[in-house]
């Protein structure tokens, strides 16, 4: 949220370029809603909810603010503050840490910028450190903040310090920059290990601003919390104790999360004083096209129809897809459809993380100016890049979490007029669960951002970095890690020759004693930081970048890589040098990768049984290795979505260690069932799908954070094929997809019986007869004659192990 605009109504929205619009079509959100009631679209609106408008709650500029700052703000149309901005200033002035968790476009950045400006105006030697999760965001903010500093006539510099900062600017950054903007990775590996050279910054550090707090969850968040522990240690050494200012999008636990990150109590501001027009939130569940199999119309196509109606009615619209592929497919369909209405295809644009920075800037500017009427995006826009608020948001598919959904919905919202948010549910089980219980969207609690700063693997990595930065003295503090645990960890490092203990008064001192630079071996992000570049062989130019993990599924050889509405085929993937060479093609299909994952138990921490006096099932919790491999791809025909072929992929495996919960059905139990073995195994796979749905919903986590597979606990046994080879005990694994785990599997282990009961309830309450994508998934056994019994079989298995429904 770059907008520094506070308490003023925004300038009138720019008029869209008038293009030929079919005569008589409706214009504006209300008219589109009316149209949907008459054309039958409304029949599939399973929920429609109105959120009332909110009047602005204003507060005067604090008297302490210097006239030059007040003038700089007035120049931006800010005469007074919103109440939450004034509150943030008040807390910050008293040195209280504060987290601002108000909606998108409510002027959050002024909540931290104003206290920082004030501090710089009062004390020219004061310093502030801003952390953004991405380089792009800090670059965006630098420009806006620099203008603000200039207008406020503060003679201090601001600089972005990241891998792209030139050497001479680095020197200036160390000595003079009043405000340093960077990312956690650079702070961790580039700044803190050299903190002696940054004495100006660390000895005068007044504020640490952490924006986009909600993005620091899971492993990344656990790393950040440790980086902050190190930061505080270094700041203490240089004699400062900074105040933390956090900004976060909607999450369930902003105060708790901020507190865990900085290790001290934090004040919470979540009531926005910004005005808000009325908002309509609807859920559209696409019509069923095959009642027996419970198959619905493609949600991508449905989202395209909904969006087309909005764009034709001149409603500026943002469409979110959950995958890059989905985004490009929708973009192509939308352009095709709107071409019939003579709407210029260039008014519809894609926006995603893989785009090069220049392209992204251009799109943002065009959207603000009105040259682009509709943007189709992955979640890149969630990261606060400023396009202002739009009239309508269409989410193609549930993003996996309530928080994620509301962060996307938050993009719709005018100050005065009616805005519209639409969720188009896909046929995947979680989406169908939401479509069946849409009220949960407002009544259920929002997901919590979870981190575990004391995860031993992460903690040890950062203790090494911390020892490199400053020797540990007796009674040294490292966050809130207890003294004895800290001493034990340091002794462990000493045993491995990484630190050298010496006796000092009051205990031991530990000095770094290795010729390595530990921060280089610690990556804050679970995925590799190292991107692949996509090179167009015809144009000999780089058209995009992609992260390492996505490369496996999107840039394997023969893949159709979709970019800005065009199709390219990957001709060669140079895995070693991180390059993919593509050539423009015009196929009538796109590709999706098929991934195979295998779980191997490394160490069982806890074992138990689900024993309800019938057939006891072994269940356990422990460390596992998860190996994922892209084994092939399918060709999917555009528009019909038929599967028109497939191919093999040869890429290295991706391996990680994490924690898993498992449930084993003994071989003799499988054999005792009346159905063939293959059918039983397929039914168990169906059961695992249902368990995955209820687990994700019950834990309030993104389903992608929870992996699922059916396999064997013993490593020497291959994954079950179609049930040919007998002799293994089918095991359902549910695991943390985040390497190292963030504590989901242990909670499933604790509530294992409840989990099974809820899975049963989900299956029983589903309207389908034989299993559908909304519960146990469609039949995959390939044996037609047993199909009808499938859902019945799963319930029979649950009966056999004594699991009754909750009610």
């Amino acid at each position, binding site marked *: 949220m770059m907008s520094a605009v506070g308490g003023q109504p925004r300038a009138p929205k720019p008029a869209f370029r008038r293009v030929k619009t079919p005569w008589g079509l409706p214009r504006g959100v209300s008219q589109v809603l009316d149209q949907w009631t008459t054309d039958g679209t409304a029949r599939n609106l399973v929920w429609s909810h109105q959120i009332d408008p909110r009047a602005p709650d204003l507060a005067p500029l604090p008297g302490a603010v210097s006239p030059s700052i007040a003038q700089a703000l007035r120049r931006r149309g800010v005469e007074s503050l919103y109440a939450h901005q004034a509150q943030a200033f008040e807390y910050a002035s008293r040195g209280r840490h504060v987290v601002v968790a108000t909606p998108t476009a409510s002027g959050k950045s002024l909540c931290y910028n104003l206290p920082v400006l004030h501090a710089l105006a009062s004390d020219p030697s004061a310093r502030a450190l801003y952390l953004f999760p991405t380089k792009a965001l800090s670059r965006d903010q630098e420009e806006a903040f620099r203008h603000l500093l200039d207008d406020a006539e503060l003679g201090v510099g601001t600089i972005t310090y990241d891998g792209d900062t030139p050497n001479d600017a680095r020197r200036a950054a160390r000595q003079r920059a009043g405000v340093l903007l960077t990312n956690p990775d650079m702070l961790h590996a580039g700044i803190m290990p050299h903190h002696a050279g940054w004495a100006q910054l660390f000895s005068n550090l007044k504020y640490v601003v952490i924006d986009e707090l909600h993005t620091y969850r899971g492993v990344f968040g656990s790393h950040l919390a440790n980086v902050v522990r190190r930061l505080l240690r270094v700041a203490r050494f240089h004699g400062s104790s900074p105040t933390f200012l956090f900004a976060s999008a909607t999450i369930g636990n902003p105060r708790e999360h901020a507190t865990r990150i900085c290790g001290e109590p934090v004040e919470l501001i979540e009531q926005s004083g910004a005005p808000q027009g009325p908002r309509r939130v609807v859920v559209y569940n696409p019509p069923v096209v095959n009642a027996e199999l419970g198959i619905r119309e493609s949600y991508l196509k449905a989202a395209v129809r909904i969006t087309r109606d909005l764009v034709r009615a001149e409603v500026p619209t943002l469409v979110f897809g959950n995958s890059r592929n989905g985004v490009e497919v929708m973009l192509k369909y939308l352009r095709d459809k709107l071409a019939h209405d003579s709407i210029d295809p260039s008014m519809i644009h894609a926006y995603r993380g893989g785009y090069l920075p220049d392209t992204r800037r251009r799109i943002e500017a065009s959207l603000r100016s009105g040259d682009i009427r509709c943007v189709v995006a992955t979640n890149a826009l969630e990261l606060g890049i400023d396009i202002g608020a739009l009239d309508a948001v269409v989410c193609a598919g549930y993003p996996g979490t309530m928080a994620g959904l509301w962060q996307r919905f938050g993009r719709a919202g005018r100050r005065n007029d009616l805005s519209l948010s639409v969720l188009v549910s896909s046929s995947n089980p979680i989406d169908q669960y939401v479509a069946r219980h849409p009220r949960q969207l407002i009544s259920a609690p929002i997901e919590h951002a979870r981190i575990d700063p004391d995860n031993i693997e992460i903690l040890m990595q950062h203790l090494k970095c911390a020892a490199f930065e400053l020797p540990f003295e007796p009674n040294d503090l490292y966050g809130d890690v207890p003294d004895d645990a800290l001493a034990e960890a340091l002794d462990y490092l000493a045993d491995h020759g990484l630190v050298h203990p010496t006796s000092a008064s009051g205990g031991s001192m530990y000095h770094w004693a290795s010729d390595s*630079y530990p921060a280089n071996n610690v990556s804050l992000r679970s995925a590799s930081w190292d991107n692949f570049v996509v090179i167009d062989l015809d144009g000999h130019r780089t058209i995009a970048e992609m992260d390492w993990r996505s490369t496996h599924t999107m840039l394997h050889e023969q893949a159709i890589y979709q970019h800005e509405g065009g199709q390219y085929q990957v001709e060669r993937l140079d895995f070693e040098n991180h390059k993919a060479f593509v050539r423009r093609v015009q196929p009538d299909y796109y590709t999706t990768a098929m991934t195979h994952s295998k779980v191997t138990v490394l160490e069982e921490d806890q074992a138990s049984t689900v024993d309800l006096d019938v057939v006891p099932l072994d269940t356990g919790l422990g460390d596992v290795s998860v190996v994922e491999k892209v084994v092939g791809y399918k060709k999917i025909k555009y528009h019909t979505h038929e599967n028109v072929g497939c191919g093999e992929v040869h890429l290295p495996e991706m391996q990680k260690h994490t924690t898993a919960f498992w449930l084993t059905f003994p071989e003799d139990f499988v054999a005792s069932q009346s159905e063939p073995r293959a059918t039983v195994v397929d039914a168990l796979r169906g059961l695992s799908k249902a368990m995955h749905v209820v687990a994700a919903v019950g834990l309030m986590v993104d389903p992608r954070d929870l992996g699922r597979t059916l396999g064997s606990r013993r490593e020497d046994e291959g994954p079950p094929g179609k049930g040919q080879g007998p002799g293994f005990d089918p095991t359902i694994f549910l695991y943390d997809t985040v390497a190292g785990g963030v504590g989901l599997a242990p909670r499933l282990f604790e509530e294992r019986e409840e989990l099974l009961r809820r899975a049963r309830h989900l299956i029983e309450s589903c309207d389908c007869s034989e299993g559908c994508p909304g519960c146990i998934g469609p039949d995959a056994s390939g044996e037609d004659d047993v199909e009808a019994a499938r859902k019945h079989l799963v319930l029979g298995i649950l009966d056999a192990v004594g699991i009754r429904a909750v009610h």
Partner: protein
Amino acid sequence: MDVASVRGALPGASETTEHGEVHLVDAYLEPHHHHGKSPVAAALEVNVPRLAQLALDPSLEGVDMQRALYLDTETTGLAGGTGTVPFLIGIAWFEDESLRVQQLFLPELGREAPMLHWLRERVAQSSCVISFNGKAFDWPLLRNRFVMNRVKAPALPPHLDLLHCARRVLRARLRSVRLVELERKVLGMVRQDDVSGALIPQLYFDYLDGGEVAPMAKVIEHNANDLIALAALVAKLVNHFDEVHGEDDPRDHLAYAKIAEKTGDRERARSFVHAAVEGGGESACTVEACLLAATIARREGDTDGEGQALHAALDASEDDLQLAAVRLALSKHYEHRRKDLALALVHARGTALAEGDDASERRTARLERRISRANPVHASHSPSDPGAG
């Protein structure tokens, strides 16, 4: 039990200072000490303005070599950053004609402050610091240590980093300008039983963990040798710049000529360039020396001299790349100084390898245009025909 008796005794002794204990190895060299074949005390006699010129650093112009401080550290790693500790700080300076070598050894991590104070006081008495790669490595590291140990850092006097000088003078001849290479090839000194620099951090960690003293004594000796080499090297590099030494390699002469040219010392540049051309050796060196001679002549307005030098370069050229570079210079020479467009064009036809196809074609076309304007009757004749001019 006395630990030292088991581990062996570390060279040097503990000194008590007002800031705490310092482990000091203190030694004097004989006034006539030679490092290899090179007299160490020669460093006192160097022509100081020449030294400043060699270093491209005017702040060294008036330094008193009697008060120069030679500095070299041994560290717990090469990574830099606050976790890298200089466990041995070697300093040396001349007392009369004797080099005094003092080495401050850190017997235990965490006891740096007294040695930093010691260093600070010594730096404060010195006219300049002379190091090898100290600008990028030793000094930034020491500056960090002052911050980390809350000792006020001394103001750094002018700093002569011999790595940069050695690179400028010797890189054309020696691929590697590491100090041990320079010692062997420039100072004629071969160390016996020296420790490899890469092993030094681990040797120190072994020592901290109660290992033997002998390897540490080797490290201390290694550091002392580095300091002595610095003094010998400064004399060698400066003296051979102060006067042409005919027996030196022509590549060294050429390198010195370039430095002299860069600092506006044309006379010295001419002497060295002459020595480089006369010295023979590889054509690349001769051609480059001739081209430099031509540049110097041009700057002085000596058109004949420039022409002679360029033709000498042409004669010396052995491959197409050298030829192209020389012909480019000749084309410019004939076009701009001699106003002989025809000859300029002759040479312009062979410049593509030096300036690229496009630039070469533009040059040729421009010359053809100028020739046809100046002499329309013969415009259709080949301009390279001597009759056309």
